[in-house]
């Protein structure tokens, strides 16, 4: 279970990506997502794959880690792939047996969609969560949204909540494991029986987990108060955000990628995504 939470975790490093300004990174991710959805042509997708490989290389994060982050998504990826394979009608019929009609177009389409989802997850997690400390991330978000504080939106409170949530994910996952083991040792069975039965078996896990989470919240609030936390007003930060040549270079690279994808969409003659 612990291995599955690679998604959304920071990996220490000193790469080009680690040094980018988190404010820019958030904008880059939005930009990158837009570019990913712009791609329609197989060649545009090839360019996207290249960009993802490039990201993996410069992030200095091990491939195993990245693949582990994809594991929780296997179900959703295979589900979308299957829907595309079986439902999309095309011209070249490959298999025609009983109720199954599989077309070449369906296969390619499924492949492209899988590529899109994988790049989406890999790209955003490398750009953001793997290479940015959660505090830098929420800090960047807070500053990007700071104009909204002028119209009395609780921007600081929101980013503090995010920070604490991110901080407690590993702690609560560990706790869930402990409770599950304790219940298993008392003969609880989480893996057999009907769906309803299994859902019911989760109640003895959730109740202690919630009780302990509330207790933790209370203690944390006391500890924060002891450390003179009085909200966002008058608070400074140790790490000041600087944008520099790296951010400019990354922005230019992304613009080039965007232009490339659009050009390939228009001019390259290959299979084009149906959806």
């Amino acid at each position: 279970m612990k291995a599955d939470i690679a998604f959304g975790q920071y990996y220490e490093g000193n790469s080009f990506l680690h040094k980018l300004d988190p404010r820019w990174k958030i904008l880059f991710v939005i930009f990158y997502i837009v570019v990913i959805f712009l791609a329609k042509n197989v060649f545009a997708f090839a360019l996207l794959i290249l960009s993802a490989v490039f990201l993996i290389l410069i992030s200095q994060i091990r491939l195993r880690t990245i693949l582990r982050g994809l594991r929780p998504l296997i179900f959703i990826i295979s589900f979308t792939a299957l829907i595309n394979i079986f439902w999309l009608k095309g011209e070249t019929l490959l298999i025609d047996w009983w109720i199954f009609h599989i077309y070449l177009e369906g296969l390619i389409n499924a492949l492209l969609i899988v590529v899109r989802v994988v790049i989406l997850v890999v790209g955003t997690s490398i750009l953001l969560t793997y290479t940015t400390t959660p505090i830098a991330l929420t800090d960047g978000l807070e500053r990007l949204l700071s104009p909204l504080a002028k119209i009395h939106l609780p921007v600081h409170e929101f980013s503090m909540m995010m920070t604490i949530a991110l901080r407690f994910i590993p702690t609560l996952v560990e706790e869930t494991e402990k409770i599950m083991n304790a219940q298993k040792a008392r003969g609880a069975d989480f893996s057999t029986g009907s769906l309803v039965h299994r859902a019911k078996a989760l109640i003895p896990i959730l109740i202690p987990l919630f009780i302990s989470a509330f207790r933790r919240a209370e203690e944390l609030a006391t500890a924060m108060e002891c450390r003179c936390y009085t909200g966002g007003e008058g608070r400074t930060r140790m790490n000041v955000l600087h944008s520099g040549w790296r951010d400019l270079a990354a922005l230019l690279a992304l613009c080039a990628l965007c232009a490339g994808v659009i050009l390939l969409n228009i001019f390259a003659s290959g299979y084009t995504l149906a959806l």
Partner: protein
Amino acid sequence: MSVIINAEHISYSYPADEAERPVEALRDVSFSVAEGEFVAILGHNGCGKSTLAKILCMILQPGEGTLSIDGKDMTADDITEEDINQGRRKVGMVFQNPDNQLVATIVEEDVAFGPENLGYPPEKIRRRVDWALETVGMTKYARHATHRLSGGQKQRVAIAGAIAMHRKCIIFDESTAMLDPHGRKEVMDTITRLNREEGITVIHITHYMNEATMADRVLVMQKGGIIMEGKPAEVFSRTEELWAAGLDVPQTTELLWHVRRAGYDVALDIFDPEKCAAEIARALKGTAHGRDNT
């Protein structure tokens, strides 16, 4: 030496929980702590020691009595939020559960949390954080994730977070209770170093007797009041009284007490195992020698 904490006749009751009566946690507690002192507070579970810690940190307001921090009366009627914050800048607290007091996911960012709250400029925060991590010996782990550290290391980060605000006094509320022996030693070494080398006043609440022997002074609490006070040697020499209060004494003292009861003349206030062995050997030899003569 000036007095950093002065508590006079403090009482506290937890508010009534629905139909039940209010629970009295502290009754007429008076003591003071001088700057640079290392005070240990001992007591059984539920004797009110954690309540006392919360009052000293101004998390709870005492029902009766006065508490002054560094000469400022914190129980005065005209006390403001700002005054309380000023008090908290002088007195910090390290809690029992290391997981529930770290705010940030990265070590140095957590240590910076306190100074950031005080609104210091970034360079000053950076200096404070580097100093604090150096003092607790965690510089190597500055960029590590907090949840991957061991219990003792997490507690040291929490201590760094407390001292990064340049506090005069730090209260340890059973900060060693959830740690394994190795982690406990790490934290105790850090605490004694803070006290000896940085001159920070330490109030250490614990139920480990051998930790209390390192203190300059020991307060023993029972049922919401202080029943004994003195140097560790004095307090632990009153072995029977401590046992009557449901408390233990250090293992060396217990052993020496049994040796004494068997009729040998030994001191009770020896906490070092080697010295304790030497003392018993001396006592046994002494009698053996005496027998030879007769």
